[in-house]
């Protein structure tokens, strides 16, 4: 045994073992600590990453919001100016109605409508102003209004009329939706082809069907269109692509906001796209309201109607042709100058003039040397 005790290697071993053990234990501890630290760091890093993504997302949203607000304000000014200009053009058209300049005024009017529509579309994407509220209007008029907002409107043919009218708040949205559809239809079909619009009553409301003879869409395009048309929220101004594609995005926003639906997934009989706008019943009203629009009522009542004891029947048409009704000679030649000179008389003045006219003709008939020009007021 003794030699062993004297062996320094043994002593070295005896001393070394606990030291080594301690060192190993320490090392293990260190590793565990480091592992923990690593996990913490990982966690920290993940947090940072999250924060970063959130911050980027937030910045993006804020930038989008700022862009939207800027565009919205800019578009609102443009829309207001376009609408002011439209009024000015209307007045000029009235004033120069019989001049050759009318042709140019009609062209300018057309350009102005297209310009207003572009501004309106951008405004829609920025949750902005859609334009001044309009009176309820017949579906046919809304479709025609939409037709007038695109460049090649003469290629659009409206094949059917209807007795439906659109409620006030939906007039502009529906017109803008149709205009965007028609713009697509004319852009993606040959210039000599026609675009057909049909209006069909369905149990859930009314369908406006737009058929073009263009190249149609492939499955991918259809899927993308369907996604845009059904999306609840606007994808934003910054994700419209380059070149930006407004049409379906604008329509999607309008459809969601006003509660109608638009689909473009079927093929037209001419091989192009068939777009269908389904207007539910709550956006529809009866056609009689807009027919008796204040604009018509404000115009001069025809003079002999003032004398006519019969109440004026509502202007109804059956079978597409005007109901022929005797309303006295509304425009016999001798009174022509009288009614043409002052088309904006109020009814009281008209009544007094007509009274004078009647007294004049009566006294004329009584008198022996009656003038043949019986319409002269005494």
């Amino acid at each position, binding site marked *: 045994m003794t030699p062993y005790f004297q062996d320094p290697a043994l002593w070295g071993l005896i001393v070394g073992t606990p030291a080594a053990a301690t060192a190993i234990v320490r090392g293990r501890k260190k590793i565990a600590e480091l592992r923990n630290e690593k996990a913490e760091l990982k966690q920290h890093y993940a947090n940072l990453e999250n924060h970063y993504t959130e911050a980027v997302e937030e910045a993006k949203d804020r930038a989008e919001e700022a862009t939207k607000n800027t565009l919205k304000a800019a578009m609102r000014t443009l829309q207001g100016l376009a609408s002011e200009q439209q009024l000015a053009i209307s007045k000029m*058209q009235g004033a120069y109605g*019989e001049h050759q300049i009318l042709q140019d005024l009609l062209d300018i009017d057309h350009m102005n409508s297209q310009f207003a529509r572009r501004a309106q579309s951008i405004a829609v994407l920025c949750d902005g102003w859609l334009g001044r509220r309009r009176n309820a209007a017949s579906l046919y008029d809304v479709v025609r209004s939409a037709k007038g907002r695109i460049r090649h409107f003469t290629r659009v043919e409206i094949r059917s009329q209807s007795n439906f009218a659109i409620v006030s708040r939906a007039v502009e949205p529906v017109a803008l939706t149709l205009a965007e559809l028609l713009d697509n239809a004319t852009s993606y079909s040959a210039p000599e082809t026609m675009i057909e619009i049909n209006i069909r009553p369905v149990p859930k409301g009314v369908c406006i069907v737009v058929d073009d003879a263009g190249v149609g869409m492939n499955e991918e395009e259809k899927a993308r269109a369907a996604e845009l048309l059904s999306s609840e929220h606007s994808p934003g101004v910054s994700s419209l692509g380059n070149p930006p594609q407004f049409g379906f995005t604008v329509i999607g926003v309008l459809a969601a906001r006003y509660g109608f639906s638009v689909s473009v997934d079927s093929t037209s009989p001419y091989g192009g796209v068939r777009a269908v706008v389904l207007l539910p019943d709550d956006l529809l009203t009866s056609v009689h309201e807009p027919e008796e629009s204040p604009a018509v009522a404000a115009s001069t009542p025809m003079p002999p109607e003032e004398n006519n004891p019969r109440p004026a029947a509502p202007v109804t048409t059956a079978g597409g042709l005007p109901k022929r009704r*005797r309303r006295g000679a509304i425009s016999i030649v001798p009174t022509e100058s009288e009614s043409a000179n002052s088309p904006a008389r109020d009814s009281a003045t008209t009544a007094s003039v007509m009274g004078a006219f009647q007294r004049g003709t009566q006294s004329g008939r009584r008198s022996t040397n009656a003038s043949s020009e019986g319409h002269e007021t005494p």
Partner: protein
Amino acid sequence: MTTSDEPELAQETAELVRPYVITNGRDLLDDSDFSLITLVTMHREPPRTKPLDPEKLRLLELCAGGFLSVAEIAGHMQLPVGVVKILVSDLTAEGHLSTRAPIPSAQLVDRQILEEVLNGLQARFG
């Protein structure tokens, strides 16, 4: 931006259906076809055609009772005269309307004759 030149002040809105849509973008007619005082009335036996546009129906209603001049129609319908002329031309071509040339204004009498008459009257009664 929107506060200074707020365009909302004008309360009226222009017509929903613009005149160039009503004419479907056609060129205006020559002045020779219809004048402001061309007289128009509804044809006795209107033909059966496809449904007419609301403006054409209104025009026919206006003319149903008698003769009306193009200028008067334009005034009642609040449409430019040039546009009304196109509508009248269409309806005439389709047989809904018949037109009558305006009554010609009296021929100007020769100044010399007038002077002779005046002289004669003065010689007799003067």
